[in-house]
């Protein structure tokens, strides 16, 4: 079989067994790989309404058909589960080299079920799977340490997917790490893995991925590489990377500042692309990516050297402006601490910002204040260890704010903390956040793209935004939910501004037939609807966002987006339009007509 390995590795931690099942190719034909195929497997393998903390709740690692080939950016891995943090689906993506290594080891997917009786590390060398006790040597290690330990003890070429100490303490935003700086950040997969007593999966694969006529494929990919990858539309990511967003988003009054109380951060000039270029050591790339967006930085903080990749824009926004921190060295240190302890930076910055807000408002003294560097850089370790105020912060935004009687200060959607775009400066993001399949997320649709970055549509109106959230304007590079669904099934990276027409050219090699743009978009719609069905089955809460983000009373008094508010009526009617355009009822349940029309093969 070309592109796919045709194998799913099922690791049962309770029984300490590893079995190989054939990949369901009927599902692959409908849902491709990555996000789509993950959703289909989740639908089938997750017992309906399962307690997400139960051993029966599996953790899924899914590759895309192009992982391990020369298709740029498609080395991404999607980690999926019913999230213990949100109670709904969570698909979290990570670059690096883990997914290609899975393919070279012989697997398209890994499903982890059960719970190990003791802390465990699983090693996979091609078809040999071993279960090693993690204690005392590996349990408790930080992410760089466990990776190095696997290179030392298992294989110099080991690719490791691990949790840091935060995953061991079941932190609700603990992430998975690979190649040290690459994180499957969102949704608490680290906590799920920790609950299974699984510290790490270390892989070594020496096999192959076949593509049919390799030289013909190489020639076509060399063409696509030159025509579609190495273009100005994508190379901003190489020249600058995501810090380029700081001035743009801040300038539009959409950068979360001091727990979302403002949309413009006066200290952002110290955290912009220019500032980061001054401390850039080199450019780095994920496996099989010609763009190479990653910035490896080096600086010193409190006399100590701090080196590593990132921070990316979301981290700069949430851990910078949202905490009132304009000190680039402190931000580097905070980011490195989150990386090492295994914490998602978006949620970390959001929760720390909330704790600062609660402290400043005199609600409760959590020892953190906006702009105060010394306590700020210690927060990740305290959170991961649940020490002192860290135990309070580890509740997460929603529970922390509720505990102290201020639920309105928690900036989350479906218990996933919001990323770095305030809808008051980018109206389209409101419906985008509200309808995102995994909760507060900017990766499903990105109205910021045309509202702020390109500036081709006004940011302060809902006119046309609902349609944009669903279908996007793909020809111009603005992704909607349907397109991101198929794109993340490839799994192409967001930073390749690829079009449906270009995806079709690549899918042709996988499906060995012509694929039309319409079919690409149809597959995307099918995948999005399958995700919705899963969430409805598991009991998703109402699609909404924090009221302050759209209510007239929530408008900013100062800054570039001052006075702008979507308005409650406008937000409600946009949500109404969204369901109607989707072919869903007003509770967000997809209709039989819609499911039949787009070929979803399961029903509630």
């Amino acid at each position: 079989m070309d592109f796919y390995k045709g194998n799913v590795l099922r690791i049962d931690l309770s029984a300490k067994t590893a079995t190989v099942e054939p990949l369901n190719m009927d599902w692959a034909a409908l849902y491709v790989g990555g996000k789509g195929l993950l959703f289909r497997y989740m639908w089938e393998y997750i017992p309906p309404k399962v307690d997400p903390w139960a051993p029966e709740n599996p953790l899924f690692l899914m590759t895309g058909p192009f992982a391990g080939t020369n298709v740029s950016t498609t080395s991404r891995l999607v980690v999926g589960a019913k999230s213990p943090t949100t109670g709904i689906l969570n698909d979290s993506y990570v670059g690096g080299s883990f997914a290609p290594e899975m393919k070279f080891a012989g697997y398209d997917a890994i499903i982890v079920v059960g719970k190990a009786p003791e802390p465990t590390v699983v090693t996979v060398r091609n078809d040999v799977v071993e279960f090693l006790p993690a204690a005392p040597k590996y349990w408790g290690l930080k992410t760089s340490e466990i990776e190095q330990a696997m290179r030392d003890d298992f294989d110099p070429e080991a690719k490791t997917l691990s949790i840091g100490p935060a995953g061991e303490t079941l932190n609700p935003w603990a992430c998975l790490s690979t190649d040290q700086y690459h994180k499957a950040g969102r949704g608490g997969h680290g906590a799920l893995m920790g609950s299974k007593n699984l510290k790490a999966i270390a892989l070594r694969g020496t096999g192959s991925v076949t593509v049919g006529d390799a030289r013909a494929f190489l020639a076509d990919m060399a063409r696509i590489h030159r025509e579609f990858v190495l273009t100005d539309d994508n190379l901003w990511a190489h020249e600058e990377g995501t810090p380029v967003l700081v001035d743009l988003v801040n300038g539009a009054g959409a950068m979360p500042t001091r727990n979302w109380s403002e949309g413009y951060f006066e200290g952002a000039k110290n955290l912009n692309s220019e500032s980061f270029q001054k401390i850039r050591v080199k450019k780095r790339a994920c496996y099989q990516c010609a763009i190479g967006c990653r910035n490896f930085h080096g600086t010193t903080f409190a006399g100590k050297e701090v080196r590593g990749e990132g921070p990316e824009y979301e981290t700069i926004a949430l851990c910078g402006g949202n905490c009132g921190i304009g000190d680039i060295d402190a931000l580097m240190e905070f980011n490195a601490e989150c990386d090492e302890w295994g914490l998602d930076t978006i949620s970390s910055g959001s929760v720390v910002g909330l704790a600062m807000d609660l402290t400043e408002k005199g609600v409760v003294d959590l020892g953190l204040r906006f702009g105060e560097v010394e306590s700020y850089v210690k927060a990740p370790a305290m959170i991961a260890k649940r020490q002192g105020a860290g135990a309070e912060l580890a509740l997460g935004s929603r529970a922390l704010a509720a505990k102290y009687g201020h639920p309105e200060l928690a900036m989350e959607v479906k218990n996933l903390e919001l990323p770095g775009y305030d809808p008051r400066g980018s109206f389209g993001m409101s419906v985008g956040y509200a309808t995102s399949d995994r909760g507060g997320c900017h990766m499903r649709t990105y109205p910021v793209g045309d509202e702020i970055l390109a500036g081709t549509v006004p940011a302060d109106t809902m006119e046309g935004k609902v349609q944009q959230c669903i279908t996007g304007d793909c020809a111009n590079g603005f992704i909607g939910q349907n397109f991101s669904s198929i794109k993340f099934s490839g799994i192409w990276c967001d930073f390749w501004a690829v079009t449906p027409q270009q995806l079709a050219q690549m899918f042709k090699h996988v499906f060995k037939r012509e694929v039309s743009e319409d079919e690409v978009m149809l597959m995307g719609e099918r995948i999005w609807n399958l995700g919705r069905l899963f969430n409805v089955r598991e009991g998703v809460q109402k699609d909404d966002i924090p009221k302050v983000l759209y209510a007239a009373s929530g408008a900013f008094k100062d800054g570039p987006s001052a006075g702008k508010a979507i308005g409650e009526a406008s937000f409600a009617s946009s949500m109404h339009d969204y369901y109607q355009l989707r072919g869903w009822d007003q509770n967000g349940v997809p209709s039989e007509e819609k499911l039949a029309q787009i070929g979803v093969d399961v029903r509630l």
Partner: protein
Amino acid sequence: MPHVMISSKKCTGCHMCELACSAYHEGVYRPAVARLYADVNPTTGAIKGHTCLQTGCAKCQEACPNDAIVTKEITVKAVGLDEVKGYVLVIDEDKCTNCGECYDVCPTNVIHAHPDREVAYKCDLCDGDPQCVAFCQNPHVLAVDLKVDKADKALVGA
């Protein structure tokens, strides 16, 4: 002689060169059998490229007891670069006994026993169309570059 080099400074560690190399030579994507590789430490970001220096080194050829590593004339036309004429060292698979003498002497660790066949394998510059160069970030980074030794240029001119 023409040979490829990986610039540690420019290389981003994407491994596209290894992928293209294996697909071209093996007919499948199998970087474990690539003819060049970038050794990447993800934590420190340190990268060390490993490529064959061809006739500029030739330690493998000198070590071979069976004359199985032969000098072959080649015209290299890498994507985006000028045409270069010269020589590469290739394995004569009929003569190679997989004895391993060359594996031990290679200073860059890029000549090995093939995992499926009882022969050595090494870089041959893809018969003049090096895929590693084609799939590097050419022309934006060009970490995988085609180099020509001065001494060898004289040889070509002669």
